[in-house]
């Protein structure tokens, strides 16, 4: 990672487009993060799954009939500016 940058781990939903067959359960369970396009295929938000939705996200992953949905860990670099802001607030 870049010098002076910190990273945080967060979870993100991901669709395997080859496996997905547009059952749409994910959008039903988790409309906050998944919408469907006009052909019924999921458009998954690229923002991190917020803690409040984690349980639902896990269910959506487990209930996908095609096992096309997954929760992946991603590392995000946090800009030093934000880190300073957080520490100054303490």
């Amino acid at each position: 990672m870049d010098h002076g940058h910190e990273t945080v781990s967060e979870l993100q939903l991901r669709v395997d487009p080859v496996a997905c067959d547009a059952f749409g359960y994910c959008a039903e369970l988790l409309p906050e993060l998944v919408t469907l396009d006009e052909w019924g295929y999921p458009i998954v938000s690229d923002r991190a799954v917020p803690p409040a939705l984690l349980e639902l996200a896990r269910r959506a992953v487990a209930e996908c009939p095609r096992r096309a949905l997954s929760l992946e860990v991603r590392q995000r670099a946090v800009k030093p500016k934000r880190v300073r802001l957080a520490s100054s607030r303490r």
Partner: protein
Amino acid sequence: MTTTTTTTTATLRDTSRLLAVADNGGGPDLDTHLQVHGPAPQLTRAAERDAVSDALSRCGLTGRGGAGFATARKVDLLARQRHRPLLLVNAMEGEPASAKDRVLLERSPHLVLDGAQVAASLVRASRIVLCVPAEHGGAAHAAHVALAERARRHLDPVRMELAAPPARYAAGEESALADWVAGGSGLPTFRPDKGQPMTVRRSPVLVQNAETLAHVALVARHGDGWFRSVGLPEAAGTTLVTVAGAVERPGVMEVELGTPVGRILDWAGLPGPPGGVLLGGYGGAWIDGSDLDVPFAPAALRQRGAAVGAGVIGVLSAGACGVAETARLVAYLADESAGQCGPCMFGLPAVAEDLDRLAVGAADPALLERLRRRLEVIPGRGACGLPDGAVRLAQSALRVFGSDVANHARRRPCPGWAHGPTFPTPGVRRMSLWTTGTRR
């Protein structure tokens, strides 16, 4: 894929590197190759390999297959793997308007094979598979003859073989190629982490475009300083382009990166101001026909939403209709979809139909808005880049042919829509003739 293309031998430039043999009238045989380029360096010692590896990093060479990824980074990643990699030489050239990899293999097969041996040494590859579709008969034949010549002289440390995967548009996409070599059906596979190498039966796979490897062969011989002596500081060297469409001498040329598009078109015989110029390939982008001063280099093209891509420079004549041409190209790409990913399988035919209706003057009032919304949601959601490329092309058409698009949307198509196709779209049915009143 029956593009009839010839090599334009423009002798007015001293940037003949990959095509040095051909431009001097030489044949594709090994002796001529060695006379012109000299012997390939033997990379038996670690210090020699390190030197070439460093030169490759410093020269800034990027992949010439379309994605433009830094070659040295790909090689370094594969060199760090525990298992010995498999090297696939990608001469699939699925872009119907592109002929440069074919011409390169026909004219200078040994340069490609030298480069493959160099890359194989750097990553300790166990085997090299040269992938040329059987449909590209001249190139496949030249490769076959060249491999036999080298085998007779025991020239190469790494075993090479020739393979003929199916000639589909997406067959050369690297995961599709790896899948085919692994015994699969040759379809793109979903790779969530593109930073990890693909594997074929536990072997990590390095896929390099044929032209890229020819550059590698020359960097290994002459070093990075030589490579960087032409082109731009940020995009050095030469590149092969295929000039297609409405020019007097369509064909393959070697140009310095950064050469203005207009100058390249002058060499190919531009009869007059074009209606638009297609850059990269079918999954590329249109630029305005008056924007010919733009340098053919990644940064300048990116500003216009275009890219060097596979090196296609396609000229649409002023009398042709960019909307109709785009409709045909997107229909072609939709047909070439492997049908694996929903957004591509359903999205591209929908976009193609919108463009088709637009082109022939059968647009319903909601068409443009619907088309724009579709183009927004499709990208980034397929296993390979095919849908993204089709969307890029369609979006560039809406931008570049903007006023024309507005007229078409008002059911007043330009006279050019009846103009025949400029670029080959094998397999695409004739444009549907929506009679007036089919849609309210």
